């Protein structure tokens, strides 16, 4: 008992958010507030074609008629949607051609965050080390995308969404909003109206993307939200692994991040999508500030035998509302969801997945590890459903929650809807705390309390960590450890 | 007794048995040996009629009677018994209840009178003692929470209770320590008789030290590629399956 108590106290006293600095640069802002003119402003800033503007305006109209959802186990003061900037960009021009044109302060920011934007920096790494291409999104714009040329040689399109709208309108028109319809939900609809930037990936038939793709999202500006939109299409027999990372400065006001991610896989294609989310979580004592992370992520496994795997490590944000999902439409398609969600201080997370089995012999697997500490609240919410036609559907779900301290909460809310007699769903969930005995055992062998806690928690989340691409797994493990220092969880 | 001729069988879309032929006369014990993936377990499932194992051509007869159109329980009533490589756990059904239900179903199918409870229990006690099975264990749900060795012993117990005419032992030695192996083999050998025959499927020669075969067949690539006397098993133990795997 004493050991846990001390650890909890020790841990609460540590400084933990390492990415809370602000980059001081000149920025372009849209005026505060939200109306049709702001939507036109954003579209004009991005030199968008008329069809894109029309799409946004239609979304805005619909959004006005919708209500904010209230079913998640999170509570926060009403958001004043008029009290935010819906566009913020560094005062450089959009569409930079070389890194030399990028504001050195921004480059410095990414360097501090450990994100390699110079291809030679990546290339100069250890021989044989995996390389990855980066799209860097700073507030509302993509500042640079690396390795574009090399990827283009094999036919892979990797660029910012703004560029895709200009350069690949046919693909964008065909797929944008086809997985997450404009009025799918309140936040997705808001995103459709005001989305700023994000990444676009198209992998042509038969191509295995030769490197990891990643996007690094940074919110920097004050009083602004980030509304990125990402669209990834893996055509027949294509494969791509994609990773996103997110950080923001420490600020006293809440900032809204309402992203939409759409994935499409055709026959035999596979997308592996990993997220390491470390938005500023707000002040651990007062709960002041922090990002509202209201995100809609969904994959449409259209093709037979196609596969999508979501892996997420969620350590940041003051509120997380996020359910990366798979629509398993193609016969024999499969979906996976691996999640680590850590809440501490006053954080609230309501996250999970939906696996919608529509096609025959579809499979899904859900492994969720939630850790709550401090005065936080951590909810797993998931849906597994099988349509009458989804004969032979299989799901396995394992949801484990770990509680650290007396004032946190952990909830498990799974929905299971089975509508045919040839599917098999299995769900297991446990809620426990860090074992005194294990802690003592580890400490008796010489580990400090902190090390012992880290060791045990790493064991608890291991199944998920190992799903991350190697180079990010190490980083994620560190992040878990840092969050542990500050949360023992 | 059992006659298999030019048997082809598929699982899903894959053909596993590709023209397998074998004859096991009454009174004999034949061993089938082969590398992993040769189709050994498939053969045992095809003979017993497991759903999902489709015979595309060929014949299987027991004493001249065509087995292939029969449901698994009808084949069982004809005296065909498979000792499973991985015996199933049946939660909620005590072992004795299960075996008695099976025995009576078989007797009924053969038009014989059902066995009364006292006679059944006497028989069960006697057979359990021979196989060194704790009688209390038979009151528990069949195989639930049993160790690998206990499950195999329970297979042999069921075999003794049902007294089948044709026995298929699928990797019966796997997971058994030397004492358990001896008990199991004694149980099997006790059933050897001029009216019965057996097919012993195994990867290793070890079991054949205890259950002596009259003939040994090598199964590779979905068909029998070699047959011989007991010495063939020793040769396989020494030289491995490489020669036959290549031939297949």
């Amino acid at each position: 008992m004493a050991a846990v108590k001390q650890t909890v106290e020790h841990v609460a006293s540590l400084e933990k958010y390492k990415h809370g600095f602000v980059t001081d640069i000149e920025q372009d802002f849209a005026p505060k507030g939200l109306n049709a003119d702001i939507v036109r402003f954003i579209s004009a800033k991005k030199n968008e074609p008329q069809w894109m503007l029309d799409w946004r305006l239609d979304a805005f109209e619909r959004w006005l008629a919708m209500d904010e959802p209230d079913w998640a186990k999170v509570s926060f003061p009403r958001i004043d949607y008029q009290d935010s900037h819906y566009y913020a960009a560094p005062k450089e021009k959009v569409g930079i051609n070389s890194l030399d044109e990028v504001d050195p302060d921004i480059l410095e920011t990414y360097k501090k965050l450990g994100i390699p934007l110079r291809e030679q920096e990546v290339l100069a790494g250890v021989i044989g080390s995996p390389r990855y291409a980066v799209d860097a999104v700073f507030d509302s714009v993509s500042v640079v995308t690396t390795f574009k040329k090399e990827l283009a040689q094999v036919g892979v399109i990797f660029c910012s969404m703004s560029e895709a709208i200009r350069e690949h309108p046919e693909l964008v028109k065909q797929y944008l909003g086809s997985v997450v319809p404009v009025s799918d939900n309140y936040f997705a609809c808001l995103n459709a109206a005001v989305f700023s930037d994000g990444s676009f990936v198209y992998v042509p038939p038969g191509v295995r993307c030769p490197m990891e793709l990643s996007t690094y999202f940074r919110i920097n500006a004050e009083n602004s939200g980030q509304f990125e939109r990402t669209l990834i299409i893996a055509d027949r027999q294509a494969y791509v692994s994609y990773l996103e990372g997110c950080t923001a400065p420490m600020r006293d006001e809440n900032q809204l991040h309402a992203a939409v991610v759409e994935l499409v896989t055709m026959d035999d294609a596979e997308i592996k999508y990993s997220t390491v989310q470390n938005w500023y979580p707000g002040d651990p004592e007062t709960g002041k500030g922090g990002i509202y992370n209201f995100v809609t992520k969904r994959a449409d496994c259209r093709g037979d035998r196609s596969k999508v795997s979501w892996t997420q490590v969620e350590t940041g944000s003051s509120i997380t509302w996020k359910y990366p999902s798979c629509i398993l439409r193609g016969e024999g398609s499969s979906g996976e969801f691996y999640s680590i969600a850590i809440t501490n201080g006053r954080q609230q997370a309501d996250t999970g997945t939906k696996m919608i089995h529509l096609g025959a012999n579809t499979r899904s697997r859900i492994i969720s590890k939630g850790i709550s500490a401090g005065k936080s609240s951590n909810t797993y919410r998931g849906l597994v459903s099988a349509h009458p036609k989804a004969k032979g559907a299989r799901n396995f779900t394992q949801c484990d929650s770990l509680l650290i301290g007396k004032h946190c909460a952990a909830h498990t809310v799974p929905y299971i809807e089975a509508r045919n007699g040839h599917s098999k769903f299995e769900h297991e969930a446990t809620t426990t705390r860090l074992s005194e005995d294990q802690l003592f055992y580890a400490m008796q062998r010489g580990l400090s309390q902190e090390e012992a806690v880290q060791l045990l928690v790493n064991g608890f989340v291991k199944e998920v960590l190992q799903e991350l691409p190697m180079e990010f797994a190490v980083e994620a493990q560190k992040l878990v450890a840092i969050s542990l220092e500050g949360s023992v969880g | 007794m059992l006659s298999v001729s030019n048997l082809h069988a598929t699982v899903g879309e894959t053909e596993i048995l590709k023209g397998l032929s074998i004859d096991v006369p009454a009174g004999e014990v034949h061993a089938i040996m082969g590398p992993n993936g040769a189709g050994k377990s498939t053969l045992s499932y095809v003979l017993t009629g497991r759903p999902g194992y489709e015979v595309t051509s060929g014949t299987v007869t027991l004493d001249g009677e065509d087995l292939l159109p029969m449901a698994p329980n009808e084949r069982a009533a004809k005296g065909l018994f498979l000792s499973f490589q991985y015996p199933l756990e049946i939660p909620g059904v005590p072992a004795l209840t299960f075996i008695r239900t099976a025995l009576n179903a078989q007797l009924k199918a053969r038009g014989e009178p059902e066995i009364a409870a006292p006679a059944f229990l006497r028989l069960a006690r006697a057979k359990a003692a021979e196989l060194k099975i704790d009688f209390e264990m038979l009151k528990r749900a069949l195989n639930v929470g049993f160790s690998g060795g206990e499950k195999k012993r329970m297979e042999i117990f069921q075999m003794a209770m049902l007294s089948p005419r044709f026995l298929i032992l699928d990797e019966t030695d796997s997971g058994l320590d030397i004492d358990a192996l001896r008990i199991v083999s004694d149980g099997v050998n006790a059933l050897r008789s001029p009216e019965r025959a057996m097919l012993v499927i195994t990867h290793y020669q070890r079991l054949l030290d205890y259950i002596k075969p009259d003939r040994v067949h090598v199964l590779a690539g979905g068909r029998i590629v070699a047959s011989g006397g007991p010495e063939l098993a020793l040769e396989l133990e020494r030289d491995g399956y490489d020669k036959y795997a290549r031939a297949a």
Partner: protein
Amino acid sequence: MSVAAALKARNASALPSRRDEDWRWTDLRGLIRVLPEPSAPFNGIVVKGAFDRLADDHRVLVNGGVTRIEVAADRKAAVALRLIARGAGTHANQVIVSLAAGARLRLLETYESDGGSLAHTALTIALAEGAALERVVLAADHEDAVTISQAQVTLAPTADYGQTLLSSGARRQRLETRVAHPGGRASLRLDGVYVLAGKRHTDHTSVVTHQGLDGTTAQLTKGVVRDQARAVFQGKIIVSEGADHTDARMGHHALILSDRAEVDAKPELEIYADDVACAHGNTVGALDEDALFYACQRGIPEDEARAMLTEAFIGQVVDRIWFEDARKVARAWAAERLRA
């Protein structure tokens, strides 16, 4: 508005609908546009009930009524409680059960209907310290009936409460149990069995709130659905702040034996204390084909093997009934429904 209040106000539009989270899979408002007329008093003869022989105290409510069941300190009682609907009207029952310290009660409850009735039963059940209650509910409704039973159970420390619901569904059938669990070595068993065919629907909903140290809850529900039947299981265990050393386990396992049957489940944990051991498991699927083949290989015909395996599946819940005679009734009921 609650079901009871909506019926009292005779306002169909106030019935819960699928927009209410608790009723998402049992939509009454969408089903009932107009409330049936209040049931007429019934003066006919009532045939024997399933549990009559097992009790010395018989309470029969036909088309609505109120009954109180009180067991004095350290006394024992066995009550057969029959909630009967005759005809197609609307009515409400109220049942108040209280057990003084150390009292013991076998409450054997049946729901019986013969047509398109709409019946609501509100039960309040209170157990004082050291009291023990076993409640066995046999909900044998008519396929056109709508039956809603809502029990509010309050336990004192060291009380012992066991419950088994047996239901074969109806047009809509909801058996709801809410338990205020004080911890303090009070123990709770909440079980259920459903066997559904045709277009029948049943809904087993429970909410257990652990409010103090050292409480246990063991919950097991199993069901079999066929044809176009639909089963709903909603189980929620809440462990309040400070309710440490709670041990709560919930299992729900269902077999779907046809292409068009449906099972919806929501096993929920809401935990505000860290020193707890809570778990739930949920499985939905067909009968295990491997086990079926195994039984057939031993000579058991397929239909018989199926019946044996499904009965064994359900039997694991029935076996947890403490009162042996009630267990026999339950077993016979399950066998009859499964072989129907």
